[in-house]
């Protein structure tokens, strides 16, 4: 098997400001064989996307490519070719599928036009030929009722269908290489499964090569023949998918494989990157916690109980016409003290709305939330203040949930001031310092601004903010979904520690079934605003009853083992 593309000693740096230059890719070499799938794996900032985009030179203006770097394709060095040559190659011989199908398609053109554009550009087909080929392509990527969908605009299609259109555009000219940059990250797990199957099918059918970029080893294990693991702009390890998964050599690869929660075991705490990179155990081996976490005992009386929660949105569709959209149709559940309730579902299932309703961030249309013998939803705003601190939330996006104009100190002391915690400003400040230490951040963080921290650190700040209020119930709304796998593990460990320490009750909302499996004692499965299945999480994962749950569980990428 000869190599289609060879990347040799690729170095890319970015010019920031007048003098600052940041090296993003530091001498990366890898090959993409003909008719094979290579996966670039790494966390954010590892340089995987930059490496891949360098092949077609789709880099930002301020990028500097090293002089000795080479990208060989068809006997030419693409890095040295003029732009005209590259333009002829892009979309024809090498095409790209991006992460966000919603933003990669132009909203003012029909999908048919957008597929046709690339055909006319590179193949010079006639109108009739183009129209036929567009239909053929749409059928090939599995868009139902292709004939009618040709004239649809991107917003009329679902996310999965949009990504299919992107793939149709990419394969339209039968490229030799398809670069897929996190093509399934923005999609729901069941849709991800379909897209992965589609890419694998097309790869085999057209005998093309695929360069697949992902942060998710589970996905990579299913689709790739070869895996290149990257970190900090360098290749840590590359090899056959079997070797990488069965016998990883590099400590970082081992860590990546280990720190993702698994469906079959439930250790007391998740291994983190540092366990592997700086082993503390004997003989330089990492200490792996093998002790299993045991489910907590159930209490009879629930701490909080939701009865018949409903949320409707009324949309104006005409002058007098109103359409009612039900975000949550009927949600009743109870949570016992100290336990974790996992809420899973795909986007649009209403799982986030349920969390917001519980703490009255959204007003419910109907229903009750019983806590401490009172219905929280019927309290006045003043009465609610006393309960506000008891129920807290950690949001998904740590980049958005901290006020960028506040210092960490201000962020941490604000809730204390509001709820009258602490005797004086000094006292509150020292409490804030203690919280910062508790979540494992250095003390000097207190005077910094949120933008100076990484995603995982910001999520720790968000956790530190709620600690001083000593909430009884903590709603984690996709709290770790935006984080890298290794960071995810450390935050999950922190959440578990805090739960043990303060006896908090968690409502853990996530689309990530493996994470919920690891965290939750009880579970709700939601679909289209309804709870379709509930019960002990172990029981649901072992023996799902509802069809939707079965489909959901069946879609989880299982890594290399499952594919073998």
């Amino acid at each position: 098997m000869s190599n289609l593309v060879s990347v040799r000693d690729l170095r890319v740096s970015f010019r920031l400001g007048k003098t600052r230059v940041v090296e993003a890719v530091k001498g990366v070499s890898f090959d993409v064989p003909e008719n094979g799938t290579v996966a670039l794996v790494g966390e954010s900032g590892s340089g995987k996307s930059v490496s891949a985009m360098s092949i077609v030179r789709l880099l930002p203006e301020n990028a500097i490519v090293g002089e000795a770097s080479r990208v060989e394709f068809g006997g030419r060095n693409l890095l040295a070719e003029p732009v005209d040559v590259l333009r002829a190659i892009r979309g024809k011989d090498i095409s790209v599928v991006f992460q966000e199908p919603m933003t990669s398609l132009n909203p003012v053109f029909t999908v048919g036009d957008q597929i046709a554009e690339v055909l006319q550009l590179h193949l010079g087909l006639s109108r009739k030929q183009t129209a036929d080929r567009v239909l053929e392509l749409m059928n090939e990527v599995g868009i139902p009722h292709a004939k009618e969908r040709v004239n649809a605009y991107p917003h009329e299609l679902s996310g999965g269908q949009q990504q299919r259109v992107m793939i149709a555009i990419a394969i339209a000219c039968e490229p030799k290489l398809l670069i897929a940059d996190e093509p399934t990250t923005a999609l729901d797990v069941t849709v991800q499964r379909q897209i992965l199957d589609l890419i694998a099918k097309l790869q085999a059918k057209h005998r093309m090569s695929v360069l697949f970029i992902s942060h998710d080893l589970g996905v990579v294990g299913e689709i790739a023949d070869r895996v290149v693991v990257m970190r900090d702009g360098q290749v840590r390890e590359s090899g056959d998918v079997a070797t990488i998964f069965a016998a990883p050599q590099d400590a970082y690869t081992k860590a990546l494989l280990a720190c993702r929660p698994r469906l079959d075991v439930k250790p007391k705490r998740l291994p983190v990157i540092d366990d592997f990179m700086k082993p503390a155990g004997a003989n330089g081996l990492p200490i792996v916690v093998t002790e299993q976490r045991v489910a907590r005992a159930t209490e009879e009386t629930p701490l909080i109980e939701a009865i018949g929660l409903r949320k409707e949105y009324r949309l104006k569709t005409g002058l007098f016409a109103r359409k009612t959209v039900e975000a949550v149709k009927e949600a009743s559940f109870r949570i016992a003290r100290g336990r974790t309730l996992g809420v899973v579902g795909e986007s649009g299932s209403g799982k986030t709305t349920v969390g917001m309703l519980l703490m009255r961030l959204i007003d419910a249309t109907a229903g009750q939330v019983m806590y401490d013998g009172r219905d929280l939803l019927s309290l006045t705003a003043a009465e609610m203040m006393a309960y506000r601190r008891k129920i807290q939330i950690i949001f998904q996006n740590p980049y958005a949930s901290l006020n960028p104009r506040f210092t960490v100190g201000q962020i941490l002391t604000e809730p204390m001031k509001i709820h009258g915690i602490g005797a004086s400003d000094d006292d509150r400040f020292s409490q804030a310092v203690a919280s910062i230490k508790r979540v494992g951040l250095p003390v000097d963080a207190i005077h910094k601004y949120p933008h100076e921290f990484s995603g995982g650190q910001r999520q720790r700040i968000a956790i530190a903010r709620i600690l001083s209020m000593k909430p009884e119930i903590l709603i984690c709304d996709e709290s770790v979904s935006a984080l890298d796998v290794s960071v995810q593990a450390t935050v999950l460990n922190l959440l578990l520690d805090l739960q043990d320490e303060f006896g908090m009750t968690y409502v853990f909302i996530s689309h990530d079934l493996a994470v919920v499996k690891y965290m939750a004692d009880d579970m709700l499965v939601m679909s289209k605003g309804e709870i379709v299945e509930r019960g002990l999480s172990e029981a649901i994962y072992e023996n799902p009853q509802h069809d939707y749950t079965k489909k959901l569980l069946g879609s989880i990428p299982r890594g290399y083992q499952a594919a073998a």
Partner: protein
Amino acid sequence: MSADLTAVSAAAVPMPERSPGVWKAAWRRLKNDRVGMVSLVIVLAFLLLIIAAALRLVAADWQKEVGVPNAPPTFMGPRVEAVTNDPLSAMVAKDAKPVDLSDIDPLAPKYKEWEERAAKIQISDPPKADTLPFGGDRLGRDVLAKAIKGAEISIFVGMFAAVVATLIGTLLGALGGYIGGKVGDFLEWVYNVFTSIPDILLIFAFAAVFGRGITTVVLILGLVGWTGMYRQVRAEYIKHRSREYVRAAEAIGVSHFQRMFVHILPNVSHVVLVRMSLLVVGFIKAEVILSFLGLGVPVDQVSWGTMLSEAQAELVLGHWWQLAAATLFMATFVTAFALFTDALRDALDPKLR
């Protein structure tokens, strides 16, 4: 937890070093912007100048008639009197012989007495300069001093009117954007009414009601100019209202008022600031128009606008310097201010993520 927390006394905590705040970071970025820094220096120089003018350190005697009427600028040299060249005046001078009217003049006997009385009164007519540094106006007042004094009024009016407009626009925008619903609808209605009337008509209406004066000009411009600010702040508030950090603030029990002005306002402050400095530029120009139309500052004061309106008549006679001085000052300040605004926007609106 409480035991753990209280154990850490404030004294035991090493005071961590403060990291550069948003403003410091903005200043750092601004310092690297050469155009921004040059325009900042010019703007500061103007501000110093108007402070000095307000304290009567410079241009205090702008009303003094120090030169001959319409004295030309020094670099042009004194006006060569047309006495010798002009054939008409030469002719008048030659032929005019004094006619003795004392026989028929009933007042003739009193002349002597009057002359004696007049001699007793000291009239000191100071010598008038033939040229002035940048010329003089029709009364012989120094144009340069006028332009400096005019800067004081014009910039003062521009800045204060901008502050008034910003306060109104930001407050209404924040309310409309954050609360929305009925309140938002009502404010939109007010906004629509205000924008549906041509600005100049509105200005005339206000001017007719309020009478003349600097405060009036400030009020008029402020009351007319808030609409753009309102619109933009409202849009920002609608955007930020549902941001997660505001949601997070709500979750910990922060009141509406605090969410509006403690949480959101600092995050939209760059929009407000930039809009405000654009308003300053616009209002300086508006004041010029108002004064030009005679609705601006009172006659006993001077602004760039009154200078321009005087220049209209002078220009016909070829006395261009008053126009040049006012234009030069205004153009320099407005350009520098606009460029500074641009640089400020870049410095304040960084991609922090």
